[in-house]
Each structure stands twice: as structure tokens, then as C-alpha cells.
């Protein structure tokens, strides 16, 4: 067989070979861990600096909206941000406005609090889920008690010590929204646009590119994108061996191989097209 035969076979490669290679290159770095350097971007650093500048006892809002499908990217990010907040003795108000992930977010919040001895009602409050995030976000701008007269566990908000004197966004230092849905736009339009709350976003890598415009216009003060953003935040809080950092090698190698596939595919296409002309 001539080399043209090889390129023809490559151009018509069974996609299962591609699946197999991607599976292997993603899986092996998890088993045989090799650390890679993770550079910190200014937009992630901005979120870290903002939270780090808050004095102990300050109320911060960390609403989370992701489900099992995006928890690989956003759960490490959420844990890193919550750990930072609890380590700074900040008081956290959280909601979960995506129905698929409510239980997951409750677990993340509870476990992160437990690592730092956080007490429910005194150090953090979980409001839970209500449908129609746009309506809820608008209502919370007036008073948290409007959409959430009771928290996730059925407690009256006024019975929780942490909620004394906390009515709406103006009583929180900032909002760090960790979100995989299009509901991010509601936080920007309503929480920041209408009520002027300081807002930072943690989103999946796929939609992160959509929000650089808001970063430039200062509608958001920080942006964490995908697993890389999570890895950067873990580095900033000094947890270099957490899951996002450990996964960076897999992500890097997978990206490299996808690019390799693109290059080989293009070579095969153009060589076969040239031979076709001949």
C-alpha cells in the first residue's frame, strides 16, 4: 500500500478509534498523576482578592446553580470558594435555583462548612430552591424573605441568628454566583443591573467566553471559567492537590490530542483531495 492508502484510511478512520484514544489519554493521567503548573489569571485573582479583603463576620452570597452534568467543573470551584469563605469567617447565604442540583449543592455547602466547624444558622444559611430563577432573583433584591420565608430545612428566616439585619443584596458584601445555566444573565441583569450588587461569576468553560464582555464593562468584578478556573482558585487558597489541580493534566493532554486529531484530519483531507485531483 502506498502512503496515499494510509491517508485514505486515516481520513475514513472508524470513530471508535478516536473514542478509544481520548478515553485512554484522559484516564491515564488520573492514574499516573503528573502535576502541571497552573498560571493564575487576573479575573480569578479578582474574585480571590475581593473575598480575602472582607472582614470576618461579613455576609456574602454564594448562590450555586449546577447539576450532576456540570458538577465535574463547578463542584471543585464551589468547594474552593466556600472553603475560602469559611476560612475567613464570612457568613454565607446560598441558594440553589436549579432543581437538578439542589441536593448536591446542599451536600457541598454542608461538607465545606463542616471542614471549618461552621454552624448552620450562625455561619451559613441555605435557602434552597424556588422555581423561576428570574422571579426569585428579583424578589431577593427586595427581601430574601419574599421568595424564601423559610429556608431549605423549614426554619423561619427570622429565627436564624445570621439573618438578623440581613434583608436583601444591599446587606451582603458581594455575590459569587457559580452557575452552569443561562440563569447567569438574570444575576447580571437583576442583581447587578437593577440592585447594584457586586457580582462575580463561576461558570463552565463553554459559556465563560460569553461573559468577558461583562468583565470589561465592570458589570462583574471577577470570572472563573471551568475546571481551569477552579484549579486557579484552589492554588490561590493553597490547596494544590485538590481535584481540579489533579485533573489539569488530563484536561491538558485531552486538548492536545484533540488538536492532534484536527491536524491529522486536515492533512488526510488535503492529501486525499490532491490525489483525487490527480
Amino acid at each position, binding site marked *: 500500500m502506498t502512503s496515499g492508502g494510509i491517508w485514505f484510511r486515516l481520513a475514513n*478512520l472508524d*470513530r471508535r478509534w*478516536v*473514542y478509544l*484514544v*481520548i*478515553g485512554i489519554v*484522559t484516564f491515564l493521567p488520573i492514574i499516573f498523576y503528573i502535576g*502541571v*503548573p*497552573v*498560571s493564575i*489569571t487576573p479575573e480569578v485573582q479578582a474574585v480571590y482578592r475581593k473575598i480575602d479583603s472582607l472582614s470576618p463576620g461579613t455576609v456574602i452570597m454564594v448562590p450555586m446553580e449546577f*447539576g*450532576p*452534568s*456540570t*458538577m*465535574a467543573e463547578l463542584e471543585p470551584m464551589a468547594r474552593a470558594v466556600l472553603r475560602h469563605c469559611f476560612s475567613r469567617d464570612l457568613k454565607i447565604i446560598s441558594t440553589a435555583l436549579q432543581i*437538578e442540583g*439542589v*441536593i*448536591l449543592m*446542599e451536600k457541598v455547602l454542608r461538607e465545606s462548612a463542616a471542614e471549618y466547624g461552621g454552624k448552620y444558622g450562625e455561619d451559613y444559611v441555605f435557602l434552597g430552591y424556588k*422555581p*423561576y430563577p428570574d*422571579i426569585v432573583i*428579583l*424578589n431577593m433584591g*427586595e427581601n430574601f424573605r*419574599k*421568595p424564601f420565608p423559610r429556608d*431549605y*430545612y423549614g426554619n423561619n428566616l427570622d429565627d436564624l441568628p445570621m439573618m438578623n439585619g440581613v434583608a436583601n443584596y444591599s446587606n451582603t458584601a458581594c455575590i459569587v454566583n457559580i452557575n452552569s445555566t443561562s440563569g447567569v444573565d438574570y444575576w447580571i441583569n437583576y442583581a447587578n443591573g*437593577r440592585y447594584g450588587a457586586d457580582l462575580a461569576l463561576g461558570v463552565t468553560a463553554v459559556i465563560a*467566553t*460569553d461573559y*468577558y*464582555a461583562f468583565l*470589561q464593562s465592570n458589570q462583574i468584578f471577577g470570572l472563573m*471559567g*471551568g475546571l*481551569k478556573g477552579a484549579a486557579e482558585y484552589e492554588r490561590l487558597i493553597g490547596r494544590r492537590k485538590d481535584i481540579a489541580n489533579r485533573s*489539569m*493534566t488530563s*484536561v*491538558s*493532554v*485531552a*486538548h*492536545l*490530542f*484533540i*488538536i492532534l*486529531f*484536527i491536524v*491529522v*484530519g*486536515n492533512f488526510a*483531507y488535503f492529501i486525499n483531495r490532491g490525489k483525487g485531483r490527480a
Partner: protein
Amino acid sequence: MRREVPLTIVFVCGAFMAFQYFVPHYVSAAVYQYALNWTIIIGIFTLAVGIGSLIHVHYDRISRRKSTWLYSIVTLAGLSFMAVLGILSPNALTDSQGLFMKMYFYVLSPVQATMFALLAFFIASAAYRAFRAKTVLATLLLLSAVIVMLGRVPIGDMISGWLPEGLRISDVARYILDYPNTAAKRAR
């Protein structure tokens, strides 16, 4: 009239709310509060409409034995099972040992995560088969994608670390995201 009346109501309410935003009078604020209360009530009714629509669509597929009617049975069975389980379990959302929680963490969560993870394989296969530099614009898109893909992961800096600052892959990726990408998003 079936379209015009609802559209008129939506337009009038939307225009009023936009106007209300710029009016600081206490009557305006009171109307805004009243409207917010009503949106909560209407939202709950639309939830019921959504569930009813889902059941109607899948029941129709089952009764007419359409091509994917078996999956419709699975859908309705899953919906019913989890709804009944959640309603009948007094502490469904807080009991970590309850069946509801176990179904969530050991069935729903892994299934959803797996479905999303499959995208990586499909993207790789699609990129190999379809991402062709056939035109100048396609080539530019391909080059931008390669730079951003490498620049957004650590390996980009590992490859281009020897270059002066500002010319490394991560810096070029950052430039692409900050300027051409932002300009395109704003234009959209």
C-alpha cells in the same frame, strides 16, 4: 385574537415595568412589589402547565406507539416514581439514607454526569471529521480554536514558556478572548 390579546398584555406589562424602573415615586414602588407577588403565583401555575405538557406529549407517543414510545414509558415511570417517593417520604430532601437521596446520588447523578462526559468523545470525533480548513475564514477559526484550547490549559504555557511574555500561547489566547471574542459577543 388568540395571539393579539396575550401579546398586547405582555407588551403593556413589559412597557410599564420598564417605565416603572425610572420612576422613584412610592406608588411606583408599591406597584412593583404587587407585580412581583403576582409573578410568584403565576410561576407556580406555569409549573403545572409544564408537567401536564410533558405527560401529554409522552402519553401521546405511547398511545400511538411512535418510534420511541418505550423511552416515553421510562420517562413517565421515572417522573411518577420520584414524585411519589418525594411526596410520601417525610424527609426526602434531608434524609441522606433515604431512598430518594440514594436514587439521586446513585442513579440520577451518575447518569447525568455520564451523558455530559460523553460529549468529550463526540467533540473529538466531530473535530477530527468535520473541522476542515477549507476556506480562509475556516482556517482563521481553526487557528483561533487551537490557540484558545491550548492557552486555556497549563500545557499551553509549558509549550510556549520560552517565548517572551506577551507572545506565549496563553497571552495570545487572552488577547483573542478579550478583544475579537468580546467584540463579537457585544455585536451579537
